[in-house]
């Protein structure tokens, strides 16, 4: 824990209680107790049968049977769990405890924490390789730049990969398993970046800047591996705000980043006039790449984009042309499928394996919204 505060000291003991039921946690960032779990992150088992929900305030993971939609268990973990990933055989769930600087390993069948692995500062994103042998953990501390590597056989951290900038928030692994895309939400920078990392050599092969960006929140590959999508906000802090009277102090965007070396970066708006997507967060990509789902934490809805139309736009325009589109408040109608109202504060979304159901974890209303997607 390295000198972290009282919150960690109070809860770290409980986190190793095998099979323990989570006790009341703390409101994020405070020492104030709460019985509100605050579901912050959601993912599914590989077969889609179980939902795993990280409760950021409750310091626990809730299990939900996706078929019956009933809670089947809750396991106490470390402080502020912000991400999780099951192994491909669904034997273990690896959970990032952001405030504890650790990863809890849950034996899924027994619903017990079997190991707590120390990692770098503020782990907030995790992915496991298709062979299940390695977990990559993005450690997003403000002065931290590691993606820690866990050998899942040993359940030990074995090394670190260093990102080009501080604050690697989360990551995704390319469909071919050769590359990972890491978003660096670097405090103080208005030109934050995506790192493409060659997994075999553990080296950053390219740092791609998303110009005028902040609050990078999630990244996901398209199924063909040719693009990644990134949610972020565009601060207009280089304008005196008196020049921003028509709005646009912030705009809310999704970046579509070509993965080939030196490729395009399309910064596409999610906003419409008088209807902005304040604080876009978690992402989920349709398994066949048809739709992109975005949890909009500040506006309590899931925005769904037609990826075919999005990619036509990206392919059909030069970088210079794409740069003009960032603030076009009419553009989103070209690729918007729907904005679906959810519970309060959807920070994370995930899909059933067939892409027909989208789940949104609603932080404030302590529930999961189940959405039938446009996929037939």
């Amino acid at each position, binding site marked *: 824990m390295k000198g972290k505060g009282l919150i960690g000291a109070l809860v770290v003991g409980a986190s190793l209680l095998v099979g323990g039921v989570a006790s009341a946690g703390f409101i994020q960032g405070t020492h104030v107790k709460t019985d509100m779990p605050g579901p912050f992150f959601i993912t599914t088992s590989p077969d889609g049968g179980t939902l795993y929900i990280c409760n950021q305030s409750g310091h626990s993971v809730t299990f939900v049977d996706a078929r019956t939609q009933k809670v089947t268990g809750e396991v106490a973990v470390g402080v502020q769990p912000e991400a999780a990933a099951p192994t491909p055989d669904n034997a273990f769930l690896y959970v990032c405890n952001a405030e504890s600087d650790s990863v809890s390993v849950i034996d899924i069948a027994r619903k017990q924490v079997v190991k707590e692995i120390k990692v770098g500062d503020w782990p907030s994103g995790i992915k496991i390789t298709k062979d299940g042998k390695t977990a990559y953990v993005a450690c997003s501390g403000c002065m931290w730049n590691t993606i820690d590597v866990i050998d899942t056989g040993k359940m030990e951290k074995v090394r670190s990969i260093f990102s080009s900038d501080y604050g690697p928030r989360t990551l995704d692994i390319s469909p071919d398993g050769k590359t990972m895309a890491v978003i660096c939400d670097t*405090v103080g920078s208005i030109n934050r970046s995506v790192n493409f990392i060659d997994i075999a050599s553990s080296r950053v092969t390219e740092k791609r800047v998303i110009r005028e960006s902040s609050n990078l929140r999630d990244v996901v590959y398209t199924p063909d591996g040719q693009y990644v999508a990134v949610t972020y906000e565009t601060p207009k802090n280089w304008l005196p705000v008196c020049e921003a009277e028509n709005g646009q102090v912030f705009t809310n965007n999704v970046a579509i980043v070509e993965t080939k070396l030196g490729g395009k970066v399309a910064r596409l708006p999610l906003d419409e006039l008088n209807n902005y997507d304040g604080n876009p967060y978690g992402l989920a990509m349709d398994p066949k790449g048809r739709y992109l789902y975005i949890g909009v934490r500040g506006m309590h809805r899931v925005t769904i984009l037609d990826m075919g139309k999005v990619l036509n736009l990206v392919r059909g325009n030069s970088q210079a042309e794409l740069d003009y589109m960032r603030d076009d408040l009419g553009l989103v109608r070209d690729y918007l*499928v729907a904005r679906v109202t959810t519970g309060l504060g959807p920070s994370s979304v995930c899909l059933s394996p067939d892409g027909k159901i989208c789940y949104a974890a609603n932080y404030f209303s302590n529930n999961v919204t189940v959405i039938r997607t446009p996929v037939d």
Partner: protein
Amino acid sequence: MKSGMIKIGIIAALGITGVVTTGQLMAGTPQVVSTIQTGPEWEPLPRAEPLTVPEVHYRVKHSPYKSELVRYGQFQFNDASWGLQGEYACASCHYERGQTTGLIWDLGDEGWGSWKNTKYIRGGRYLPPFRHEGFTGHPDEIVGATSSLDRVCGRDPGFVFRSENFSPLRLEALICYIRALEFTGSPFRNADGSLTDAQKRGEKIFNDPKVGCVECHPGESSDPKALYSDAQTHDVGTGRVGVKGFRSTPGKVYNLKALEAGEDPYGEESDTPIIGLDLVKEFDTPTLRDIYASGTYFHDGSARTLHDTINNSVTDKDMHGRTSHLTPAEMDDLVEFMKAL
């Protein structure tokens, strides 16, 4: 989780919580089919009647640690729907960990051209005054003296954020949440909380009267409550007043090399402006607690790294501590110590 908390609400298409707005309704229109309740049901405070007197110095009436109020405040902090057209929330600048994006903004609170670094607000209640210039005192006042977000940033209601005023209870909830935010603690110490060797060397330099850090940043590393601030304002060579006096134009040239190279002095290519204007030269001494997490530094974000704060690259020589005689290794140790606070 108690089974009583579990509630499954099957909701018809376009039902209570499943309103869909769409540009092109089509076959297979997405819709909410159910809601799985995984914790207690919860609703935010109603908007209620907003305050109409913006200058009231609002004081909290309830315990600032009352859980319900703090959570209401946390919601309000993250809710973009409350502002004009849903652009952004408090958390867009002071993102959800209650920290900072480290971006600078020209909010016009000192006249245009005076950029201010986004404040790190964790632990803010321990250390009034709250704003860079020390204009306001306690966090109660920075929020409470407002009734709207615009006042927080020193502007008239409706000017920047164009949001409606808070109701009294919503205002109190927001104050409670901000007051309740705690320092996070350094990840850079040894596992047992002790200082590393480099940090110990840095502490000696920090406490050396010849260097002078402790004159304005008093504190002992063994004291978990130390704030490392004298809560006073000082001129440390960062005020970018005009060369012919206050408010003259242009302000102090901050990066002459970039200016001579023809770079846009206020362009988006750099993270800090090349020139600028300040109304005052003295700024509030910030706490050094969580300093590793609160970059960028100085009132205008001109120091991107902790090294920049002490290596005389962005301040007048030896005005922010007397450090010009230190070796690079000693500077590194000093930074390591700061990271431990």
